[in-house]
């Protein structure tokens, strides 16, 4: 072979007779790398990484790395938790002992109840861990998808498509998309096109539902804020509604939200909001107009309600970016303006017959 930096196998032809010999369709195993002789490669010129056109960014922003000092606070909390658990365990043991001393049947009942407590605690812990694992898996898919789209990376694209398929295997609403995707598995496509196809078939149909979820929660927040008699209560309502929305959105895109993972999700959403918030100038303008302007003049409470509703919508949009397994291009992202249509719709049967859902439209 020559000393160039490419291997040069001579062109060849193989006649296929009736019973086709070793040639088997390259479809599933087409990825298998042909075995090539080891050889040294010199004077390779590496092309600079091409940055061109529409790149996507993964919305997750990892929090800053913490300074590597010993975390006394964490130790304190862990020790306290340990103590409380120990105390609770002791108390329960004592309780059971007492119950046995009182009457054997009472003792057995207490033991059974304690067993149930332990079992359910275990189940909850497992569910939390599972939820967190699922969340990190979603993050992993997002990273792979971004790599496939930005760098046209074939391995990342395969991984994204495979992960997306398993993520949605058991969902009835994704059956059609999965079938279509399987149809095109053997087609020759560029890696980023393959990801885009999977996104269009599996993820895009969910975006509409996501908008609806956000709009419904935003309307509810507006209503609750407007009619709540005590100002302190509406903070609670808004919080609860927002967490419920986060869970709904995460479930929609294939997450398994539990308490801890929802909290973590909330932190990611807030981080994402802080980054993207600066860009949403027009949204802020709208907020001022609605909150302090017309709506506020009409009724102070209603104005506050409208502002809370808009805030909820913005949290919802940020949450969509965080939960969506395939990151979207900047221009395809939802903005408050694209939500308006959903917000002001009167046709929604479950919600809003009154004027409250007209709020962000001054």
């Amino acid at each position, binding site marked *: 072979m*020559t000393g*160039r*930096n*490419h*291997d*040069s*196998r*001579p*062109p*060849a*032809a*193989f*006649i*296929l007779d009736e019973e086709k010999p*070793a*040639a*088997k*369709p*390259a479809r599933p*195993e*087409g990825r*298998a*790398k*042909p*075995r*090539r002789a080891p050889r040294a490669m010199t004077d*390779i*010129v590496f*092309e600079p990484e091409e940055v061109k*056109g529409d790149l996507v960014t993964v919305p997750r922003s990892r929090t800053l790395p913490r300074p590597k000092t010993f975390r006394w606070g964490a130790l304190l909390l862990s020790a306290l938790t340990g103590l409380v658990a120990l105390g609770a365990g002791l108390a329960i043991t004592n309780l059971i002992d007492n119950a046995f001393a009182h009457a054997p049947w009472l003792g057995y009942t207490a033991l059974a109840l304690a067993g149930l407590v332990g079992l359910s605690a275990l189940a909850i812990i497992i569910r939390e861990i599972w939820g967190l694992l699922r969340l990190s898996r979603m993050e992993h898919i997002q990273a792979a998808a971004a790599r496939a789209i930005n760098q046209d990376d074939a391995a990342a694209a395969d991984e994204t498509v495979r992960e997306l398929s398993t993520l949605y295997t058991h969902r009835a609403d994704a059956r059609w998309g999965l079938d*279509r995707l399987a*149809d*095109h598995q053997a*087609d*020759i*496509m*560029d890696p980023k*096109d393959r990801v*885009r*196809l999977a996104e*269009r078939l599996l993820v895009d149909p969910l975006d509409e539902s996501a908008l609806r979820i956000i709009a419904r929660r935003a309307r509810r927040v507006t209503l609750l804020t407007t009619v709540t008699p005590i100002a302190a209560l509406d903070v609670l309502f808004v919080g609860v509604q927002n967490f419920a929305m986060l869970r709904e959105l995460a479930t929609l895109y294939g997450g398994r939200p539990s308490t801890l993972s929802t909290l973590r999700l909330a932190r990611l959403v807030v981080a994402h909001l802080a980054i993207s918030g600066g860009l949403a100038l027009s949204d802020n303008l709208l907020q001022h107009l609605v909150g302090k302007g017309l709506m506020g003049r009409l009724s102070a409470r209603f104005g506050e309600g409208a502002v809370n509703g808009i805030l909820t919508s913005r949290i919802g949009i940020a949450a969509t970016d965080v939960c969506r397994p395939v990151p979207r291009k900047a221009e395809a992202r939802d903005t408050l303006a694209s939500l308006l249509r959903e917000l002001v719709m009167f046709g929604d049967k479950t919600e809003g017959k009154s004027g409250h859902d007209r709020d962000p439209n001054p």
Partner: protein
Amino acid sequence: MASFSRIMDETRIAAGGLKDFATGLVDPTFRLGVTGLSRAGKTIFITALINALTKGARLPLFEAYAQGRITHAILEPQPDDDIPRFAFETHLDQLTATDRRWPESTRRVSQLRLTMDYEPVGYMARTFGSGRVNIDIMDYPGEWLLDLPLMARTYEEWSHATVAAARLAPRAALAADWLSHLASLDAQAAADELQAVKAAELFTHYLARCRADGVSLSTLPPGRFLLPGDLAGSPLLTFAPLDVTPDTLAEAGSLHALMKRRYDSYVARVVKPFFFGHFARLDRQIVLVDVLTALNAGAAAVNDLKTALTQVMASFRQGENTMVSGLFGRRIDRVLFAATKADLLHHHSHDQLEAILKLLIEDAAARAEFHGAKWDVTALSAIRATREAMVRQGSEQLPCIVGTPEAGEVIGGTSFDGTREAAVFPGDLPADPRAALDGSLEGQIKFVRFRPPLIDGATFPHIRLDRTLEYLFGDRFP
């Protein structure tokens, strides 16, 4: 003088642009420029595109179509009365007949209008749009495209460049006859019609030999010398380059003056009408490049292809569209460079093929980008004639393509009769695309032509035709 003719040209474009704008108000019409030198696959691309859209092919990446928003696509009756209609049905018959042939090379201009009805999704499009898009596509002999650079050159400049090129290595042997006749001519002698005819004849011979299969050179203007169309025997074609420098002045009554006059009228009466009639007001452009045939012929052919592409692409109006350009002649705001016949390679090599193409069009692409147009490259096969297979040979797995090579094709000592199926390994494309230009690939790769595929439905398999359509007009279905 030159600036006056440029003003005239711009006026012509503006007038045509106004007409386009007025007719476009009713039904948006969209001109797709299918550009490619001869044998690049223009006719096959157009046939495959129409067939795919009208018969419902699998186009998963053409989004408006895959989502079912394009309700139907039909061929309109020919809108222009003085241009023949593209013979879509004839080409399709040839491809699907029992003896499956590729369409013959195009010999004249033809045109076609494809109309697509779609369901608009955007608010503006739903309220004000008609939900209908016309796509005008034109087919023409690729040789004629080579004429476009002549518009910007004087006779002396062209003569000088052509004679200089003919004296260099790959061409010198082919041009021997013509060059020896050229040496006997005196540019300043009195004009002699017979000498002009003889020179044109020898020059035409030389051009034809440059194009033969083993040589496959591309930069061969004027295009009508190779394919005269309805101009065969016309005095417009009886001129040839003379050995003059770019600043020589033609004396009245000399051979030089005669040649110059004919060259100028060739540009004015043949090249400009062709350009302004078909290329001046395009919306999107696809440039089909047959990289594989050039690779077969060697580095000289690849270098020549690069020169030809750069020169031809300099004639097109590219750039961002504004309100004003919408009125007075739109510009091409998106260009897709496609390496055709990608089915002659295993898809593992498509990235390398795209890299070579990128190297060939780097100047043209830089120009497009400078003017604000978007561009991309792709490896395309509008009609896929092969399928893929891995063949084990000893300890090596070779990525092969399987199909029926055309009769007379030879590879690695095996020759084909046009009926036997074979798995072909065409050789590895280089990881560094520059190897294609510096000659170190000589004899290491060989692409054979395959017969059209046997199909069981109404549509052809393809490679990335859907991605191509999405890039070219995916945004025209708002």
